[in-house]
């Protein structure tokens, strides 16, 4: 099958959808000839023209809000927010408008839009361009939250997000844009939101990891296998809706669990996952406390060593797994 990068997978899915569905269009800063800050929309304005690939002013509240308004009235916009940190500026429109309109209107109207945006650290972009704020939006009933970790997942989840009649916040990751999957089908396919993926099967400890942390978890699992420790890696892929069942069944099997994300640990979504496990029937099967890994509670620093020290790395995951096994 075809090898495709994460960027190419996203672009292919948007293009396929736009060829099929005239309601789908793009809005965002520098998504025209520039091709977007990370090149995701490169070539799209040439194919679809400036009416459907709308280069916008630097007005995140206005862009997001007008996407919501157009979605409410029959369009299916995909907004690209250049860095997910700028969601702060769009937040009223997302949290107070998009998320609630349908409910407030008594079940009338819906907001079929996708807001795509890159999160994450590791590029030296520092405090205002590196955050992982997915817990903010996950907290708001009415929004769905997706975090693909591979090119394959990115394509399938994006299709599901576009088809979804609700507002979906689609978190991409800067460090993953150039990564590729070897098996990305050319024809459109959909990965249902709320369906976790077992990225590696194992027996001793479950790691639940999101986005870039999935890759670190897989590296940790590989290295731990050499020491005879078998690790299962689960990627929820969407945190709202969350596939609780896959997580619970895995914990019942392994009896030990590590929850890891790049976002700051305090108030991070890992806390929600950990609580969900302890509230479930998996609680009785736990042989060790649920272990959470997340970033230190500081703004993302510029210096590369500090930046690395802030976020969980593969070694931290290895240590966490051993902790749950009471091993050195």
């Amino acid at each position: 099958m075809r090898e495709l990068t994460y960027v190419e997978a996203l672009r292919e899915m948007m293009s396929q959808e736009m060829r099929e569905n005239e309601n789908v269009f793009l809005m965002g800063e520098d998504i025209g000839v520039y091709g977007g800050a990370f090149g995701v929309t490169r070539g799209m304005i040439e194919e679809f023209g400036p009416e459907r690939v709308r280069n916008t002013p630097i007005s995140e509240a206005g862009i997001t809000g007008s996407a919501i308004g157009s979605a409410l009235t029959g369009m299916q916009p995909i907004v690209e927010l250049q860095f997910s940190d700028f969601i702060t500026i769009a937040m009223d429109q997302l949290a107070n408008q998009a998320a609630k309109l349908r409910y407030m209107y008594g079940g009338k109207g819906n907001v079929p839009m996708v807001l795509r945006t890159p999160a994450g650290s590791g590029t030296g972009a520092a405090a205002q361009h590196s955050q992982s704020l997915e817990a903010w939006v996950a907290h708001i009933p009415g929004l769905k939250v997706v975090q693909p970790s591979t090119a394959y997942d990115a394509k399938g989840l994006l299709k599901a997000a576009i088809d979804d009649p609700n507002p979906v916040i689609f978190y991409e990751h800067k460090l993953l844009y150039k990564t590729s999957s070897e098996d990305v089908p050319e024809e459109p396919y959909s990965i249902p939101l709320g369906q976790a993926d077992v990225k590696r099967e194992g027996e001793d400890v479950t790691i639940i990891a999101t986005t870039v942390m999935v890759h670190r978890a897989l590296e940790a699992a590989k290295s731990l296998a050499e020491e005879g420790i078998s690790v299962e890696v689960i990627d929820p892929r969407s945190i709202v809706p969350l596939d609780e069942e896959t997580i619970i069944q895995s914990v019942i099997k392994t009896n030990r669990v590590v929850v890891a994300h790049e976002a700051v640990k305090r108030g991070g979504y890992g806390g929600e996952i950990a609580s969900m496990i302890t509230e479930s029937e998996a609680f009785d099967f736990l042989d060790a406390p649920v272990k959470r890994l997340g970033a230190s509670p500081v703004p993302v620093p510029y210096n590369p060593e500090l930046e690395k020290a802030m976020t969980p790395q593969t070694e931290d995951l290895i240590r966490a797994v051993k902790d749950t096994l009471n091993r050195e």
Partner: protein
Amino acid sequence: MLNSVQLYPEKSNDELLSLLKEMWTIRFFDEKVDEFFAKGMIHGTTHLCVGQEVTATGPCAVIKEEDKITSTHRGHGHCIAKGADINRMMAELFGRSTGYCKGKGGSMHIADVEKGNLGANGIVGGGIPLATGAALTSKMKQKDEVILSYFGDGAANEGSFHESLNIASIWNLPVIFICENNQYGMSGSVKEMVNIEHIADRATAYGIPGKVVDGNDLIEVMNETHEAVKHARDGKGPVLIEAKTYRWKGHSKSDARKYRTREEEQAWKEADGIKRFRDLLISEEIVTEEAADNLRKEAKQEVEDAVKYAEDSPEPSIDTLMEDVYA
């Protein structure tokens, strides 16, 4: 002193020469940074103000030391113009502990609070409300300070710009909004992103003066800012100044510049504001060509020295990670 043109405030010959040198320092600093990024010697991203030296130097040259500025992601020039030490700036870009932000901020966050620079900003339009707030302090404490808020043409489309101009205008705050219109956001041309010819015309909507200036003409930039500062210091409220200028380089470290032509770039380069000021000083016999060349070399050498300082500076200790989150 200049004879052929009137400059406000008047500047001595030495002062004029130091302005010329400062603009060269800004240019060489950013050219050096460009080189380092191209070689992968600095990580993260950077935004260079090569071509925009006049709009950095001019406004800062007419305010007092205790006056303040807010800057942007394209902030190295503003920082130098407000009196920063380029050694510590370069050290910050290298992520070293001697940098202005102890290596935690990088290019987009250099601040020099002691010198009245409230910081570069990674958020487009993020500094405009901060400047408005600093002007509020000045007014409430009767400090007689004026705040200069630098921002780009792109930032003028953020809500923060409009809300700040309104607040500053109804409260008569001593803040000068300086829009460096370099014709583009990242790639969005001002012609496509704004439905009027001059961003300065937006001042009308807030009932404040709006001025358009040639951003390559140091004399005009200084005179207009001087006038605006006087207006603000007299308690008459804010002014919006739009300086037409151009960034010679790409937006940030990787930019194929597909959204504009090489001819357009060339035309703006020919209007180089540094050269224009240098030629003026030579024609007024304030400096000889040779002395000007020496000044230029000095500026270049100081940037080299800053690189050396940065390279010799230590990396921050990992223990500093948790410091400075709270006061």
